[in-house]
């Protein structure tokens, strides 16, 4: 019997009072894709950081290919044949691909021999695994998908046999993600071992051989993927039964609440980010905007929320909104009945160093009900905050706790509670479940649907295609600052939307992968897309 590629025995690690990993044991067989799934803060990243030498375990042993190995730093990990692809790439932006690949693995004082050697092996790797990247391209000119390939190449060039990928598809389009999994499949066929850390159940079910579930620092189960189901995995992750499908009735759209015509937004660098967007949202419907991050959705939300100026016409309940004037700010938007759950709750939606109760009035702090002359009615606000936190199941429901001490899901619930309880006519929702655990996702989705059923208009922007598809009543896809098309969620699929996200409105049955890649790259450089 072959020895496992990786075997961890009794790994424990504590950060202060927090037990990040509790007595974790795991065996990963060579030539397999092993998924590790768990909610945020379950301890997945800590475990991988121990394996890669970033942290030292308090207790426990690591065996690589059957031999006990000490991994005090990342050099030792590389020497043991472990390569890691981080969620946030660690590449030098203004170096070329080949320069990044040899960085830290140069053979001598002169670079030329290393570079030509690397060039040769890059070509070989590209042919072998569909890992083609132009070796002389600058990193800053590559698309995110290609940058990720460079990270994989870096690991392979260092002779890695074990590859750890941390949330690799978070930043990719569906097409890019498909390509990534083809690469991973090729690597597996060559006998490499792959550990895939993700919170996406679908990826686990489709691509892994075995899967381990983590919850609150403990390994709750390791099962063969073929012998489990998404429902079972979700339950193991959260510790209770979870409703994965969003339960909703068909929408009953009424009058137009928001009407956007030929909206254009130019950023501070003079680049046009939104290039003439028009759409209507009716009361009682959810209008979802899908797209790869950075295609103008954020700017669109910011203009609607009063954080940026733009040109064009926006009417709210039949009245035109001032887009550039002195009175175009978050306050004036709120006065018009627009609530805003921003994409970045850490920097925008919350003041992390404020207490929960201070955050429950953020943006509405000038409302007469909270004011006594120039002073705020702290006692009344605290009391109301406690009630709001109870209603939105914020845990722990302590108004005097600072926002930064809540988990991601509970932080998001504080923002939602604030915006929804104000009873807005239109709610802008950006990335509502980014960094939010499954249990909270379920609750947040239900709240959004409930608001829709009360006859409110909702604009949803998300990079999670699943979320867009399950919540929206109409889906628009944004690419390069424009809306590529609108689809009925019942009559479209991920494949079609994925192509639209890459700016291609052609025949979905015969995707032109090269065109997809070229288009995505062009947009990232701020050039015009080549294919339409």
């Amino acid at each position: 019997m072959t020895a496992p590629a990786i075997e961890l025995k009794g790994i424990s690690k504590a950060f202060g009072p927090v037990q990040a990993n509790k007595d974790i044991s795991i065996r990963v067989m060579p030539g397999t894709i092993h998924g590790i799934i768990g909610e945020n803060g379950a301890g997945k990243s800590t475990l991988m950081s121990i394996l890669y030498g970033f942290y030292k375990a308090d207790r426990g042993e690591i065996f690589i290919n059957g031999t006990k190995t000490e991994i005090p730093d990342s050099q030792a990990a590389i020497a043991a044949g472990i390569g890691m692809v981080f969620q946030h790439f660690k590449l030098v932006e203004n170096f070329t691909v080949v320069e990044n690949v040899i960085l830290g693995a140069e053979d001598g004082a002169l670079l030329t021999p290393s570079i030509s050697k690397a060039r040769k092996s890059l070509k070989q790797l590209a042919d072998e695994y569909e890992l083609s990247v132009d070796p002389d391209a600058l990193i800053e000119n590559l698309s995110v998908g290609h940058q990720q390939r460079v990270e994989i190449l870096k690991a392979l060039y260092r002779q890695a046999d074990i590859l750890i990928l941390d949330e690799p598809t978070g930043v990719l389009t569906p097409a890019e993600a498909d390509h990534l999994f083809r690469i991973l499949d090729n690597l597996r066929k060559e006998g490499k071992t792959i550990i895939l850390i993700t919170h996406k159940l679908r990826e686990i079910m489709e691509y892994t051989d075995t899967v381990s579930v983590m919850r609150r620092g403990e390994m709750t189960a390791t099962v063969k993927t073929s012998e489990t189901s998404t429902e079972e995995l979700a339950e193991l992750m959260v510790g209770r039964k979870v409703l994965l499908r969003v339960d909703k009735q068909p929408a009953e759209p009424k009058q137009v609440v928001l009407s956007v015509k030929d909206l254009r937004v130019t950023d501070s660098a003079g680049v046009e980010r939104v290039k003439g967007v028009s759409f209507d949202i009716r009361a009682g419907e959810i209008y979802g905007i899908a797209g790869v991050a950075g295609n103008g959705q954020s700017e669109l939300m910011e203009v609607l929320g009063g954080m940026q100026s733009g040109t064009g016409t926006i009417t709210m309940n039949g009245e035109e909104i001032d887009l550039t004037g002195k009175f175009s700010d978050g306050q004036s938007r709120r006065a018009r009945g627009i609530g805003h759950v921003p994409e970045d709750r850490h920097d925008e939606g919350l003041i992390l160093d404020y207490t929960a109760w201070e955050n429950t009035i953020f943006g509405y702090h000038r409302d007469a009900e909270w004011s006594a002359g120039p002073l705020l009615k702290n006692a009344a606000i605290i009391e109301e905050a406690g009630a709001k936190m109870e209603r939105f199941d914020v845990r722990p429901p302590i108004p005097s706790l600072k926002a930064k001490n809540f988990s991601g899901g509970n932080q998001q619930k504080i923002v939602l509670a604030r915006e929804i309880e104000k009873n807005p006519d239109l709610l802008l929702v950006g990335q509502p479940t980014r960094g939010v655990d499954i249990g909270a996702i379920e609750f947040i989705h239900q709240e959004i649907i409930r608001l829709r059923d009360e006859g409110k208009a909702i604009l949803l922007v998300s990079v999670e295609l699943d979320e867009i598809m399950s919540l929206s009543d109409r889906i628009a896809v944004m690419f390069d600052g424009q809306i590529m098309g609108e689809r009925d969620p019942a009559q479209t699929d991920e494949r079609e939307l994925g192509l639209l996200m890459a700016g291609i409105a052609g025949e979905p049955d015969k995707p032109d992968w090269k065109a997809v890649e070229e288009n995505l790259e062009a947009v990232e450089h701020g050039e015009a897309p080549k294919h339409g």
Partner: protein
Amino acid sequence: MDKMPAWADVVLIPLISLLLAAILSALVILAIGESPVEAFNLMVDGALMRSSGWGYTLYYATNFIFTGLAVAVAFHARMFNIGGEGQAMLGGLGVALMCLYVPWPHWSLAMLGSTLGAAAFGALWALIPAYLQAKRGSHIVITTIMFNFIAAALLNYLLIGVLKPKGSMEPASAKFDPAFALPTFQDMFASEGNPLFRGAPANVSFFLALLACLFVWLLIWRSRLGYEIRAYGWSQTGAKYAGISGTKIIIVSMLISGGLAGLMAVNTTQGEAERLILNMTEGAGFIGIAVALMGRNHPFGVLLAAILFGFLYQGGAELALWTNIPRELIVVIQALVILFTGALDNMVRMPLERLFLALRRKEG
């Protein structure tokens, strides 16, 4: 979770820093052949054991309260107002103009007038750097430092020119009307048989400083404006999201900060010198930075820190008077306190945080 309980942050860290500064100061005093114990006794005796000593300590503390609050208010909007010195000088000018050219019927009205004058002039001097920061992005640290020099040059120019009485040989304004003299603690608390605060300069403006503490507390922690100032200080994009204008926050908080710094002139110029002199700030503008740091930008902390620095000032003067410890060494001791409580804050904070984490883990 926060790494430490609040009391450790507010009480323990400053105390340990202070202790370290005291130990180092003691070593320095030993090194020049004097007795640290004797020096400490002398400082305490001169600054705290007699009412006249308290009269001096609180006089200095009054200055530091105003300049400390000034730094604290600006800091809540994450601006580092180093211009307290210049704003206080302009405040002095405001006091002088009010007391020289307005025929007040009573000292209390004169004090009201000079309070307004000092606050207005200090605020206006802060307005220019604030405007440059808000509209032009010129860094407030750079501009406020430069404005200190401009203020000093302006004061110099006025005191050897227009404000100098004919025939006078020193760079100072004319004496104010003696009727405008502010009541000192001696006037207020001493009686025939109980001669308290004899000759000490502490005066009624100390109570103005206490009012200023209360005002800043209400402003920062109870008012809507304070809520916006703190929000802007923590996150500028967050403020934008909430519809809080950054320009407004920068300008308003700097106006308040400059006004507070200017107010110290009521104490030094109307309360003590009774005329405008060149060195009217006595360096308090800069001490205010250390006071705000040590006081954790909280008015109550600023009050305590200001009294501590008042003690160091007065105790230091006593040392220079009665021992062979040179005046410069007093500055060294004060500098050590600033260094440990302000600049080296993390040196004490980090080990303490680790200690508290370890303790908590043991409990858990």
